[in-house]
């Protein structure tokens, strides 16, 4: 047997048990890029099928949520908004938050939502959470288009910080995806994750500067407040768009490192757990 294996041609692929940490197979992910985009376009095209308003919801949804926020937090609770009209302030915060929330929730649900694929076909499992990104980013892009119109209406101009916008987007997405990869892997074995996550997200939203400015937080407590990496990232996002906010380089460095670390940890944790998916799901 062994002798024969030696003088035969080189196998195209060798399957053997793996254990422990695995490398991220970028070449294989690239090979499967068509699957990623096909799954993404499936998600986008089925989302508004059998709705009357269809794509209009993409525009209506953020406007309605920002409207509710302005009423509850701006008018009733009178939370500070760094001197910009509260509606605009809430709209910006909500968009950054939605980017985070949608990236995390959708990547979290991507394995269980496609359980039949996981147990019946082989492909790099990372494709599933990654394929949720395009639809999230599309929503975000539409909202950014609306933001330009809103800023013209409210006469608010961005500063030179606008050029850093891609950086904040990248960091917010990395943080969300990193956490999402871990929760998705855990949810395969423990469905509890799906119950804990919405509660945790709600908690996190009120613990981050989405509906209020950081100036509402007692300066003595800000150190603790910025331990939440999302606080720094949301504040950075708002600063880049509206040129307002409370930022210092320490907070930025901490949040950025946290986001990158979360993403890398998420990738490797996912790779480590993925071999059990098909057996357990």
């Amino acid at each position, binding site marked *: *047997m062994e002798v*024969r*294996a030696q003088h*035969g*041609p080189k*196998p*195209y*692929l*060798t*399957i*053997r*048990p*793996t254990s422990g940490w695995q490398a991220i197979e970028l070449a294989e992910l690239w090979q*499967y890029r*068509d*699957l990623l*985009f*096909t*799954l993404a376009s*499936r998600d986008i*095209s*089925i989302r508004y*099928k*059998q709705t009357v308003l269809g794509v209009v919801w993409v525009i209506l949804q953020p406007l309605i949520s920002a409207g509710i926020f302005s009423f509850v937090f701006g008018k009733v609770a009178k939370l500070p908004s760094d001197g910009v009209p509260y509606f605009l302030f809430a709209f910006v915060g909500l968009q950054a938050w939605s980017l985070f929330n949608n990236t995390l929730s959708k990547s979290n649900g991507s394995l269980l939502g*496609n359980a*039949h*694929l*996981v*147990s*019946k*076909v*082989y*492909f790099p499992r990372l494709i599933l959470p990654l394929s949720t990104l395009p639809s999230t980013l599309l929503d975000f892009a539409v909202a950014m288009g609306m933001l330009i119109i809103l800023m013209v209406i409210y006469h608010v101009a961005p500063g030179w910080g606008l050029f850093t916008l891609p950086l904040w987007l990248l960091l917010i997405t990395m943080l969300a995806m990193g956490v999402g990869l871990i929760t998705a892997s855990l949810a395969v074995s*423990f*469905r*509890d*994750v799906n119950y804990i996550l919405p509660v945790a997200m709600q908690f996190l939203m009120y613990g981050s500067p989405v509906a209020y400015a950081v100036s509402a937080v007692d300066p003595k407590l800000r150190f603790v407040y910025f331990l939440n990496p999302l606080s720094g990232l949301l504040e950075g996002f708002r600063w880049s768009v509206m040129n307002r906010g409370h930022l210092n380089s320490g907070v930025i460095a901490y949040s950025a490192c946290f986001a990158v670390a979360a993403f890398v940890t998420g990738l490797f944790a996912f790779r480590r757990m993925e*071999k059990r998916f*098909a*057996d357990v799901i």
Partner: protein
Amino acid sequence: MSSKDLAVSVRGLSKSYTIAHNDEKHTTLAEALVHRAKNPFARRQTETFWALKDLDFEIEKGDVVGIIGRNGAGKSTLLKILSRITEPTRGVIDLYGRVGSLLEVGTGFHPELTGRENIYLNGAILGMRRSEIQRQFDAIVDFSEVSQFLDTPVKRYSSGMYVRLAFAVAAHLNPEILIVDEVLAVGDVSFQKKCLGKMGDVSRQEGKTVLFVSHNMAAVEKLCRSCILLAGGQIVVAGETAAVMSEYLDSRAAEVDAQVSTALADRKDRQGEGQIRLTALTICDANGVPVEAVASGESIQFRLGYQCCEPGPNTNVTAAIAISTHSGNFITMLSNELSDDQFELTRPSGVFTCRLPKLTLSAGHYLINVAVNRNSIMQDWIQEAATLTVESGDYFGTGRTPPPSHGGVYFHQQWSVD
């Protein structure tokens, strides 16, 4: 060794699953944590189940290999490992070529998407590049016979159209090694034939290697040059299809004998609601005397005992007897529903009797499944309830019978010539 090239080489392949014992199974995180907290040092009580154990085999390029065995023999696990869906626990597999696997037709089909969109989606899921699908698109549509409905969401398709479209995509996969699970069990017969033909072509003309799991022995026999018989996660025998097949049928016959010798009332492998249970099946001659064997052309009776487990009116009851060959091909079904006899059970127990004035089966061994329904809800269903041995007899009353190769079923016939 032979000069032929290898397609698949499997050495020492094992796969185990860990089964936690009932009281130890934690389906929620809290349970798992609480248990850990209570017993910080206790090791989990688990049992290791070997779905596959020390498999060694090689498959040459261009071969069509059937993998046969009972449910739970490890066939599906083997295919899942070969197609990389799950990892082996031990062992090494070398694959000499791109693998395409088809463990289910229409994996990933989305009901809301149109036929056209689903071709792209399903193709991508099976590992085809977009450009590849585009190139083959017309051939796929042609093969599927659903071209008029390409822009209709597949949720509006009939199940036949759905399967045809799904299989059409799969049939145009272009891997060097194709792995196919029991997918031909669905779809209509003529389309199944077309698919089998297509798969046969793939290996003959293009030198592709095909691994094929099926319970349909006729399909395996037609398609595969060699076979691997699995039982309990191990290879029982591998080699020429005919030899492996007869080994399998023999072992099946032995199993069936063991099962049949258990009284029907004591059988545990039954399904259904259980409010009416079948307690005995006897095969009798015309006078109602139980017999060991019957001959073609004779008058026989099936007597099927029942018991009602709850009193009250048992109306609209149908009993059914299905007859199949040992290789699992159904020949016919007998039922009072077909003869339009309405049965109402008024006694707590009794017997259904089905009389066949003239047995049309040719000599051979047959398997019988029995079932009873009430208001179309299955009450009891036992597979392989009995065997039926038919000896050659004078069906036509002429002393002549068709040659065994053309046997099977006899028909009453009237000839004339002008």
